[in-house]
Structure formats: structure tokens, C-alpha cells
């Protein structure tokens, strides 16, 4: 096909009979099944793929794997848009829509490439020096523009229509990496009966073997290994799956991409995160080739030598015909030979004075020009390389070229093994870092351990696979794996020292960090690698500096005249490669983000105009639309109904705990600050619990059902915490007490009938029951049955009106609710929501969550008399601490608004009228409501105890709305201070 002008007619692992259409920046291009986006772009002669982060320099494809720092693209459109994807990891699929990033108006002509001219201003630390400190305000102004100019791709803003999954999986032996070591490890473990998960990020197994010619011995070995593994039922070959994190308990975080070439994915999630728990893990993650640092080393057409070989042998792409291979080691010579064999004109510039004779001989045979002790010092070309400047024994010379292959040696991929805090250690013989140590159940094999030769890696994998299987109790003799010798020589490499001409020499391509930035950091004292990283942003890109890390360490070591181990290594953290938030969230989005709890009367509320409110996990009626057009109108109307007639409220969300046992009374006496031992059977009592530190924990009522049985209610918010705390005390503090506690929250539906007409309504609803004052006085209990279900009526009031809490078996909840409404119709009974409930309690001066905020004591809340002279209850000793009894502690007071037409707001800060409002003030407003009885806003507040007596004036300031309002300190009980409405 004519558009594939760089494609060879034969070879590779692509299927020429399956052409694949895709677009790049709107241009229609064609690749083949088996291509990656990167290989297809190269085959089409596309060299310019992106613009760099800071300087907007033209960049091309640099690698053939997830280490890619340059060729980051945006895939898809609308809600499916996914930015910052390395082109080298994207499997080409029909209809793919790809855009380049960080350029405007177009990739070839980018306005902000003038940033390159401003480069002297944009060095490391520039932003901080310029915009922080005295000019901090300037940063606030400029940040928006700077962030816009320096950036990556944009994510889609619409909802993503695709589905993502999170799942859990298990294996005996997990193997990370499907190269020669990993394949060999998988075979060894599977052969002794271990359940094996082989994890490979590529869509093909083979790792570096895929860079070998597709008709070579390596290809044969790979075919055999793959066939052998497919023969095991206990082996899961997890392709397109990246291990992004390694966690405690031998857990690996994996993310799998759906096969993009599958025309019918049958509902498979686009990405699936798997938390894989393995009994042992073999890390066979390979190694990443290092670049070489010279001026303009970031231009399109500069590529890692191993990547160039992969594009040639795996994808049958010949990206250049006149190539320079710049190397410090033997490995890159194989790239030179393969390119020469494919017809390219090749020059090898080896930094070493005497390259191995065997390589020199092969070079001579293939017509490869060899220049020893030679390095590249500069490179020319804009959107594609044109020429390099070489410096060697014969002096400086220029060489024309269209591809530069670089190899500064190899760095073992130790990211995953570092995730648990094990620092990599430096090995002099390979001039690289290997894993420091492995905890039990973890093993390493192959190149990631510094074992580079393929034959050795296969043996090492076999050993690691056997050991990993043995560590989960599976061992037996296994025949050795088939041999594969690729004639790799491994004479020692030479540490490359960056050579810099006039142009910038890049160390971290993605973050645009140059040798100059590292020198600056050194000059300014940021010598530690961790400081270097933060000062220059080195390694902080989405590639986490996979290619740059070692070069930066080496540069800093040279500047400090220190060794690499003295300079140290940075810390790698998960994820190894970026993971989409959507994949991590899986299905826990929208409605499924958290569970929803509905009361037994939920459907009735929905059918009868309730506006619902999320309260923790619960859905509760906020207000009923029949009461008013909006919440402010409705809650006041609902309050009036309760005060003047009667209201019905769904209180099923209260925590309900059944407390039983011979020592139940003693137990409650200890957990409540007020006494319960003498509570009569059939009576309820309001109780307050403290924490061990003397702060109020929760409040509620507890009713004595029988000598040894109590029914406790807790606040909705603290229901789970209270139960857990009671269990804690019984298990860890007082195991001698014979008490059992059980949650019965979901067993009972609960509703409150409150208001002057409440008794008449109960009479009408339960004609057979005696609910008279004599039979059921305030704080009394009536137990009965209704329609064959258990029924409990407690005469309790939260609103300050005569009120009853009616409990019935949960499944009869809606039925009883409807029955009460029907019976209450002649008495003007109407349902009310949580806003009115909260307002009614504020008017009555009852404390709730806003006041019981984890900082207040009994005394602060005006409840000190409840504990009286008691002792021996939880929190008693520490509540007596002097600091908790200081006279200037904030205490509960009532506030009333004394300015016509103004209102109080929860959260307002309180100041004395004559002081300058500054800081945290003298206290704050905790809860407010409009009081229909008082005709103005009232509120509860926590106010320093020594500043204002009842009757004095304060100023309440609400900075969010720039409101200031005058208020008077009053008793927190705004209605019926004598409690006359509760009785009789």
C-alpha cells in the first residue's frame, strides 16, 4: 500500500491481509492488524507526533513500550476521549481516532514553540522564583495561563459511555512479564501444578524476543513456549494487562485493556482492574534502555536502539535508510546489523575505545561503518533529523542521517519491586539498580535482576518459577526449558557522560528537563536526588522518568564527584503506568457509588410529593411539596402543623439496639453518663454517652422492656459507631458482664406522631388501646400488637409537643403509616420532613449533631446535671480535666435575631459588638431556624462562657455571604420552657 512507504514487503508480525483504517489529527491513514499506533505512524512516514510539555519542541516516537516519554496522544472523542496515551502501547484498531497534544493551532506549526526561545527564562525553579515569595499574588494571576501553556492532553468532559469493572482474582504464582524469563517461570510453576497468572502488558507474549526477526530461532522458541503454556488448564495468560502496583499481602493491581480489534466485545468492560492476590510472585519485568544525552537529542528521528530493532523486526518498518547507532554497549550493535541487512546505510558510533572484535568483524561483513571512541555532540533537524555532529579521535565531523538509534545501556525495571519500600541497590558490574531484597513469597528473574543474556534469563526464569511454586508447597522435578542462544555478547559497557553542544540536551524528555537544569539544581544546592526531582520536576511526568532516571542520577553524581550509590535512587510509587480513574472506580459510580438505605415508608414518600435528602447512606424526606413551594416555605408550614395540630415523621433511620442479659442494667449504667439501673420497667429515659476522653459521644433514649431487657435508640448518624462501641466494651473491657447487644435497626419501622392532637389520633388509629395520660404518660411505654405484628408506642418528644414514637415490624411500616394518616385526617395530621424536624428541635433547645460535634462536653451543652454526682461511667474521669472545665470554654446558648428582615445562619462567627471582627471570634452559630412562634430567626450557638451573659448583644458574621447581623443571647429553650406541653 502506497501510504505505508516505510513498510517492508515481507516479514514482521503484522497481518498484511488485514488493513486497519485510522486517523491522526484528521489525516486518514492505514496500518495492519498487529501494528501499534506507533508502528503504523512510522510506517506512514509520520515522524512528528507531539509537542513537548514546557518548550513545545517537536517530538517523535522514541521507544516501543510503556516507557515512551514523547509520543503521547489522545484517543477517541467526546466522553470516550482519553489523553496522554503512549502511542507505542496502543494496539491499532479499525476506526481509531487519534489526536496529537499540546499544540495550537497545529502540530506542525505551534505558536507556543516560541517558548523554546524564552527557554533561558523557563529553567528549573523558574515558576517558584518568579511567582512565589513576595510576588505570590502574581502567581495567583499567572497560574491559569501557565498551566494552559504547559500541559498534556485534555480529557473528555462528557459522561463516558463505556463500562469499567473492578474484580478480585487469586493465583498460586503470579508472573509479571511475558518475556523469556517470565515464560520460562510460568512453565516451571505450571509444570508442578501451580495455578499461574502470567501478566503481560503487550498484546503479544515474548517481550524482547519480539524484537528478533520473525523467522529466527527466537521466534521458534517463543511459539513453542506459548503452545506449551496454552496446554496447561491452570495457566491464565493475561495479555493487554499491566501490573500497575504491588501491594502488601502479595497483591498486584492489574489493569486490562479490552481487545480493541474485537468487533463484538460482547459487553466486556473497556478496562478491567483486577486485584490479584497471589501466594507468590515472580517479577520478570525486564529492563528499559537508556537514552544518550547530547544537544537536541529529543528531535524526532532519535529512537532507542532496541525500539528501532523492534519496529524493524516485529512491525517490518524501516524508519530510516541512513542511520547512526550511538552506543556505549554491545546490545545496540544488533540493531546496526539488522538495519544493514535490511538495506540501510549504517554507522556505529561506539563510545568505547575498542569495541569487541567479534562485533567489528560482523560489522565489516555487513558493510557497517564503525567509529570507536566516538560520540554524538549535536544534532540538526526540526521535525525530522537531518544530520549529526560526531566527535571522535579524528576530531569533529558531520554525518547526514534520517534515524539516530541510541543506547546508553539498560536499567532493570525495578518499579514494582520498589513499591513496598524496598530500595533498589546499585550493581557495579551492570552499572544499574536491581531490587534490594525480596520479602517472602516474592522472586525476581531475568533482565530485571541484571541477567541480560536471553539464555541466562530463560534459566533464571526457570529457577524463579520453581522456587515460587515451591514456596506455595508445589514442587517436583521439571525438565529444563529448551535452550535459546542468541549469541549475545556482553562486554562491559561504558558510562556515558553527557556531551552538550549549543542546543539543549535533554535528560527527561517528557518534563523537558535538561542537563542545564540539573547543573542549576546542583549549583543551588538541590543535590539530593529527592530535591533534584522536586526542583527540576525530573521524573514527575506520566512516564515517571522511566527512561530518564539513570541519566539524571549519573549527571548529578558526576557534578557532585560522587558515585551512583552515594547519589542514591528516587522512590518509585504506584502506578507503574497511568491508570484511568474510571477503571479504578469500576461500577462504583452514580447510584452505585455507595449503598442507598431506604426506610420501609420510602415508596410512600416518593408517591406523595416528598423531596428526598441524602443523610449519610439514608434517603429521608426533606420536606413535602404539598407544604410549600420550596424548603423554606415548607418547613415553616410543617412546623406550624406540628405545633398547632399534629405531624407524622418517618424516624425509621434511628439506630435501634436490643440490650439483653442479667447485667444489662449495670452495663447501661456504665455506658451512659446518667443512671439507668433504677429505671422502672415500662419507662424510657433520655441518655447521653461520653467517650473515654470525656467528650460527648451520642444521645438517645433507652426504654426498659423487662428486668433484663432494654431497647436503646441512637442518633441516625452514630448508629453503627454506638453498636460497635458497646460490643467493644463488652469484648475488651467488661467480659464479665452477661449482656448481649444486637442491632434491630432494620427490624422496626418507626414514626413519630407529634402535636397537640397526637393522642386523639392514636385513639382513632388504635381504638383497642388505652393511650390515656394515666396509661401512657410522658416517657411511658405501651407494648402491643397491630395486625399480628409487634407494636411499641413510646411517649417521647423531640419537638417539644406531646408526641409518641410508634414502632412496628418493618414490613408493616407503610401500612401503619397510611393508617395513622387516615385516622389523623380529621385532626389535620400531615407528614413533615427532616428540615422541620431539625427546626422544631432547635426551637425546643435540644442538641443534635451540630452541637454534639466531637468537641463538646456535657457541661458545654448544658447537660452537666444529668451526670450529677455519679461516677464509674465511661468518660467520667477525663471529663473532670481542668481544661474541660475552664470558664472560657464555649457553651451552648440561644440566640435570637434582633434585626428586622435579617436572618441568622449556621456557621456564622460571633463577635462582641464593639470589637474588630478578626479570627475565630467568641463562638459560632451551630443551628438556626425561623421560629413561627417568635416571629423571627432563632438559633443555637456555642459561645465562650466568660464573654456574654443572657440578654447581651453580639454580632454574627457570615463571611461567605458578607452578612453581619445583630443577635441577642437568650436561653436555648425558645418555646414552652416549663415543658407543660409534654405532660397531661
Amino acid at each position, binding site marked *: 500500500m502506497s501510504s505505508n512507504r516505510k513498510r517492508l514487503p515481507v516479514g514482521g508480525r503484522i497481518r498484511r491481509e488485514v488493513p486497519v483504517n485510522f486517523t491522526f489529527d484528521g489525516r486518514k491513514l492505514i496500518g495492519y492488524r498487529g501494528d501499534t499506533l506507533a508502528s503504523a505512524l512510522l510506517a506512514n512516514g509520520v515522524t512528528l507526533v507531539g509537542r513537548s510539555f514546557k518548550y513545545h519542541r517537536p517530538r517523535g516516537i522514541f521507544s516501543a513500550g510503556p516507557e515512551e516519554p514523547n509520543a503521547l496522544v489522545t484517543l477517541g472523542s467526546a466522553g470516550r476521549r482519553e489523553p496522554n496515551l503512549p502511542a507505542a502501547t496502543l494496539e491499532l484498531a479499525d476506526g481509531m481516532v487519534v489526536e496529537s497534544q499540546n499544540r495550537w493551532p497545529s502540530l506542525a506549526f505551534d505558536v507556543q514553540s516560541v517558548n523554546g526561545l524564552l527557554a533561558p527564562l523557563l529553567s528549573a525553579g523558574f515558576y517558584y522564583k518568579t511567582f512565589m515569595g513576595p510576588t505570590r499574588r502574581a502567581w495567583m494571576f499567572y497560574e491559569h495561563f501557565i498551566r494552559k501553556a504547559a500541559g498534556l492532553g485534555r480529557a473528555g468532559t462528557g459522561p463516558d459511555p463505556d463500562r469499567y469493572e473492578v474484580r478480585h482474582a487469586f493465583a498460586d504464582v503470579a508472573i509479571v512479564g511475558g518475556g523469556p524469563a517470565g515464560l520460562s517461570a510460568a512453565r516451571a510453576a505450571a509444570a508442578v501444578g501451580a495455578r499461574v497468572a502470567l501478566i503481560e502488558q503487550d498484546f503479544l507474549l515474548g517481550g524482547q524476543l519480539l524484537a528478533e526477526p520473525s523467522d529466527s530461532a527466537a521466534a521458534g522458541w517463543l511459539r513453542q513456549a506459548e503452545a506449551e503454556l496454552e496446554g496447561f488448564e491452570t495457566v491464565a495468560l493475561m495479555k493487554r494487562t499491566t501490573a500497575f502496583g504491588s*501491594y*502488601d*499481602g502479595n*497483591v498486584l493491581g492489574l489493569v486490562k485493556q479490552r481487545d480493541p480489534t474485537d468487533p463484538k466485545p460482547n459487553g466486556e468492560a473497556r478496562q478491567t482492574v483486577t*486485584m490479584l*492476590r497471589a501466594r507468590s510472585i515472580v517479577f520478570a519485568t525486564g529492563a528499559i534502555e537508556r537514552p544518550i544525552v547530547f544537544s537536541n537529542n529529543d528531535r524526532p528521528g532519535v529512537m532507542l536502539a532496541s525500539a528501532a530493532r523492534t519496529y524493524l523486526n516485529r512491525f517490518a518498518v524501516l524508519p530510516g535508510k541512513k542511520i547512526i547507532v550511538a552506543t556505549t554497549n554491545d546490545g545496540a550493535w544488533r540493531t546496526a546489523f539488522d538495519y544493514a541487512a535490511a538495506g540501510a546505510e549504517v554507522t556505529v558510533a561506539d563510545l568505547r575505545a575498542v569495541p569487541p572484535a567479534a562485533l567489528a568483524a560482523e560489522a565489516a561483513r555487513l558493510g557497517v561503518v564503525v567509529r570507536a571512541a566516538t560520540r554524538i555532540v549535536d544534532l540538526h533537524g526540526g521535525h525530522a533529523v537531518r544530520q549529526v555532529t560526531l566527535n571522535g579521535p579524528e576530531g569533529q565531523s558531520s554525518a547526514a542521517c534520517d534515524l539516530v538509534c541510541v543506547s546508553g545501556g539498560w536499567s532493570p525495571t525495578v518499579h514494582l519491586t520498589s513499591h*513496598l519500600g524496598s530500595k533498589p541497590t546499585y550493581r557495579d558490574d551492570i552499572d544499574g539498580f536491581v531490587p534490594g531484597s525480596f*520479602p517472602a513469597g516474592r522472586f525476581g528473574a531475568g533482565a530485571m535482576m541484571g541477567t541480560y543474556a536471553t539464555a541466562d534469563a530463560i534459566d533464571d526464569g526457570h529457577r524463579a518459577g520453581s522456587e515460587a511454586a515451591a514456596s506455595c508447597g508445589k514442587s517436583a522435578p521439571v525438565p529444563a526449558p529448551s535452550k535459546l542462544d542468541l549469541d549475545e555478547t556482553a562486554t562491559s559497557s561504558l558510562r556515558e557522560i553527557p556531551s552538550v553542544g549549543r542546543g539543549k540536551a535533554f535528560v527527561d524528555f517528557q518534563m523537558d528537563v535538561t542537563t542545564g537544569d540539573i547543573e542549576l539544581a546542583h549549583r543551588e544546592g538541590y543535590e539530593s536526588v529527592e530535591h533534584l526531582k522536586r526542583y527540576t520536576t525530573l521524573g514527575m511526568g506520566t512516564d515517571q522518568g522511566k527512561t530518564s532516571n539513570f541519566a539524571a542520577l549519573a549527571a548529578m553524581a558526576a557534578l557532585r564527584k560522587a558515585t551512583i550509590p552515594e547519589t542514591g535512587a528516587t522512590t518509585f510509587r504506584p502506578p507503574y503506568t497511568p491508570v484511568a480513574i474510571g477503571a479504578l472506580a469500576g461500577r462504583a459510580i452514580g447510584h452505585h457509588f455507595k449503598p442507598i438505605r431506604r426506610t420501609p415508608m420510602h415508596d410512600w414518600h416518593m408517591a406523595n410529593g416528598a423531596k428526598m435528602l441524602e443523610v449519610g447512606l439514608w434517603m429521608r424526606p426533606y420536606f413535602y411539596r404539598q407544604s410549600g413551594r420550596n424548603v423554606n416555605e415548607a418547613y415553616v408550614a410543617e412546623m406550624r402543623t406540628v405545633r398547632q395540630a399534629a405531624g407524622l415523621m418517618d424516624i425509621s433511620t434511628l439506630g435501634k439496639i436490643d440490650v439483653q442479659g442479667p447485667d444489662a442494667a449495670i452495663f447501661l449504667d*456504665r455506658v451512659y453518663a446518667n443512671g439507668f439501673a433504677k429505671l422502672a420497667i415500662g419507662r424510657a429515659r433520655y441518655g447521653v454517652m461520653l467517650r*473515654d*476522653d470525656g467528650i460527648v459521644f451520642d444521645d438517645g433514649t433507652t426504654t426498659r422492656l423487662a428486668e433484663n431487657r432494654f431497647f436503646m435508640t441512637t442518633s441516625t448518624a452514630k448508629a*453503627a459507631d454506638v453498636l*460497635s462501641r458497646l*460490643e*467493644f466494651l*463488652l*469484648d*475488651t*473491657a*467488661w*467480659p*464479665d458482664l452477661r449482656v448481649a447487644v444486637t442491632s434491630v435497626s432494620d427490624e422496626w419501622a418507626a414514626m413519630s406522631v407529634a402535636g397537640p392532637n397526637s393522642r386523639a389520633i392514636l385513639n382513632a388509629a388504635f381504638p383497642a388501646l388505652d393511650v390515656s395520660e394515666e396509661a401512657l404518660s410522658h416517657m411511658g411505654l405501651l407494648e402491643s400488637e397491630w395486625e399480628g405484628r409487634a407494636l411499641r408506642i413510646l411517649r417521647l418528644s423531640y419537638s417539644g409537643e406531646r408526641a409518641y414514637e410508634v414502632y412496628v415490624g418493618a414490613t408493616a411500616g407503610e401500612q401503619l403509616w397510611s393508617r395513622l394518616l387516615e385516622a389523623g385526617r380529621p385532626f389535620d395530621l400531615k407528614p413533615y420532613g427532616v428540615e422541620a424536624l431539625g427546626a422544631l428541635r432547635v426551637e425546643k433547645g435540644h442538641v443534635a449533631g451540630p452541637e454534639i460535634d466531637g468537641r463538646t462536653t456535657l457541661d458545654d451543652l448544658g447537660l452537666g446535671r444529668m451526670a450529677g454526682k455519679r*461516677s*464509674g*461511667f*465511661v468518660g467520667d*474521669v*477525663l471529663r*473532670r*480535666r481542668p481544661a474541660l472545665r475552664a470558664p472560657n470554654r464555649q457553651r451552648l446558648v440561644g440566640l435570637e435575631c434582633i434585626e428586622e428582615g435579617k436572618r441568622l445562619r449556621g456557621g456564622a462567627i460571633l463577635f462582641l459588638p464593639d470589637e474588630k471582627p478578626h479570627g475565630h471570634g467568641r463562638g459560632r452559630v451551630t443551628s438556626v431556624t425561623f421560629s413561627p412562634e417568635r416571629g423571627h430567626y432563632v438559633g443555637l450557638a456555642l459561645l465562650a462562657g466568660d464573654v456574654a451573659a443572657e440578654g447581651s448583644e453580639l454580632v454574627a458574621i457570615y463571611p461567605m455571604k458578607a452578612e453581619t447581623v445583630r443577635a441577642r443571647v437568650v436561653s436555648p429553650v425558645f418555646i414552652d420552657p416549663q415543658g407543660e406541653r409534654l405532660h397531661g
Partner: protein
Amino acid sequence: MLRIECPCCGPRDHDEFRYGGDASVTRPAHDDPDPEAWYRYVYIRTNPAGQHREFWQHVTGCRQWMVVERDTRNHAIASVDFARKSTVRKQRA
């Protein structure tokens, strides 16, 4: 990614548990009036790098409180036992 071997329910993910703090501190008797003892119990922690005895409750399982011995450096769990058992043992001693 802790997994706790619940003595009642078997090995379970730590998502099923609630953490309950340091189990090596001694709770004073409920009627102990000594503020110093309560202060130590509530506030003083050794925060070791290494073996740590701590309370966990199997909230979505058997609801029992456990004493778990965990290495704070690597989360390796050395032992799990019912808190009730170890409390009784401690109180007898």
C-alpha cells in the same frame, strides 16, 4: 491489602473489619478514679516500628472484636485471637 484470618469466619479482606486502636494499653477498671491511669490509656501510645497489638472488629462478619498482632513495617500478621479471650486472660493475670 491486609487479610485477617478471623478465628470465627476464616481469612477475610480488611474491608470487612473496623480498626479499634492499640490493644497493648490497659484499660483501667470502670470505677478507677485515677486520672493518670485514664490519661495513659486514652493518650499514650508507643507507636512501634514492628510488632503491634491492635483491635479489629469483624463488622460485616461475626462482629467479634479481635486482637491482631501486626508488623507495622510490612503489615505481616503474626496472630489473630478473640479480644474477649485475651481480655479474660489479662484480667485473670
